[in-house]
């Protein structure tokens, strides 16, 4: 623990606080959660960036598996079977195959109320933990550019809902084998990811507000009240779902890559 005096600068007229010299007197491992967050998010962003710009091993032709990192596949580089919605963009190295969805998904997670807590604490140290000093001399929160745009979270939620529909469509199309209907371990992985993505998307705080939270009197809107109850149940688990979906996305992508590259063969249950 440092022993630097930390009483914040006092405006004229403000009365003094207790002159405590230590920055924090916390004796627990308060630094561990932000450290784990930095390690976890950095590792995931590193893997996702590497995969998005790999431009390969994203499609398994036999079983129609498409990794979510490349969905919807809309560049000229996309193989024919993977481009379910047509190709509209040039196949340049700098352009991801999922150039339509990735920016919105990034925005959805960046403006998410849970991730805001996570990265404000761990990357921006504002504050790194409760009752541990903010790492900055001044603070204006989300009142100014660019952070005032965190208020656009609901638009990212709408986009994420559309993209979840596309991921669901991909999972349905993947129930294939060369002889017709098929089901394998890859389908379990794809469906597991889609279900978790829906759970994370629907547990969003903006969704909770839109579905019923904005109402003043629930008794006049019984259906929305019940839906709000379900979303609230999910919303309590928003943090867990945020991390679970990072894991399912990475696992799904890696599984599709491994099958597409021929490192493993898909375990087939039907077809």
């Amino acid at each position, binding site marked *: 623990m440092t022993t630097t005096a930390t009483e914040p600068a006092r405006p004229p007229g403000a009365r003094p*606080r207790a002159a405590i010299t230590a920055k924090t*007197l916390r004796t627990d491992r308060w630094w561990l959660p932000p450290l784990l967050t930095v390690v976890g998010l950095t590792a995931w962003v590193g893997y996702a960036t590497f995969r998005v710009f790999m431009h390969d091993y994203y499609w398994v032709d036999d079983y129609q598996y498409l990794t979510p990192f490349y969905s919807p596949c809309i560049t000229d580089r996309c193989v024919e079977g993977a481009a379910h919605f047509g190709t509209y963009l040039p196949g340049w190295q700098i352009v991801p195959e999922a150039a339509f969805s990735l920016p919105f998904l990034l925005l959805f997670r960046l403006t998410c109320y849970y991730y805001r807590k996570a990265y404000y604490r761990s990357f921006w140290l*504002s*504050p790194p933990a409760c*009752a541990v000093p*903010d790492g900055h001399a001044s*603070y204006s929160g989300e009142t100014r550019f660019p952070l*005032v745009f965190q*208020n656009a979270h609901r638009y990212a939620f709408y986009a994420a809902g559309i993209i979840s529909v596309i991921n669901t469509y991909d999972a349905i199309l993947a129930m294939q084998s060369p002889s017709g209907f098929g089901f394998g371990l890859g389908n379990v992985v794809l469906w597991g990811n889609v279900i978790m993505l829906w759970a994370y998307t629907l547990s969003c705080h903006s969704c909770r507000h839109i579905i019923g939270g904005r*109402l003043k009197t629930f008794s006049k809107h019984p259906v929305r009240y019940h839906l709000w109850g379900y979303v609230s149940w999910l919303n309590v688990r928003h943090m867990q779902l945020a991390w679970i979906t990072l894991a399912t996305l990475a696992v799904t992508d890696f599984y599709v890559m491994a099958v597409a590259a021929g490192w493993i063969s898909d375990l087939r249950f039907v077809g």
Partner: protein
Amino acid sequence: MAEHHFRVWRGDDDGGKLADYTVEVNEGEVVLDVIHRLQATQTPDLAVRWNCKAGKCGSCSAEINGTPRLLCMTRMSTFDPNETVTVTPLRAFPVVRDLVTDVSFNYQKARELPAFAPPADLKPGEYRMQQVDVERSQEFRKCIECFLCQNTCHVIRDHEDNKQAFAGPRVMIRAAELDMHPLDAKTDRKEFAAEEQGMGYCNITKCCTEVCPEHIKITDNAIIPMKERAVDRRYDPLVWLGSKIFKRSDA
């Protein structure tokens, strides 16, 4: 019976320091019991604010090993027998003496919030509402005004200059309580929360929720819903358009 090492901040607005004490601790005691024993046996002039000893009055707020907590709700059995227990006053407010701080900032901010405003045609005794409509507001009525949330919020704890613009989580849950109340007729509480209470300063780091002894979900159930309600009014043209075209209210 065992002896425990305590460090307690002693001083006033002219300065102070942590003083060391070795004090008797008995089974089942809380930190406030030990502070009272210190007063009774070693340092009768130690100042501490307390009242109910049951976690319901919110008087004995302090920081124990750097974490904002109620002295009366922190069991001594949670500490290792050899662990030093450090007790300091709330750091976000001006010190009066020893463990007592001046928390009048919170009352000032509470006074600035417009009071409950029932519809003009409703007389006292005519209030009728359904449980399903008031249960959200009732969660916030559990608040004991210990001001641990105010103390731990970094917006004012680490930036004294923000006290002018930022009301703090305790007052924000009061705003949410009223805005969600089925019989509150004021329609500009979102604007008040955004403009006068400085809701935009909150960056959702949830320390207020972590320290709340009543386990009120301050961030998830009050501040974020109020932020979303303010977004309806200030940042969402679709909602604005819908309200104009369909004459929709948020009822």
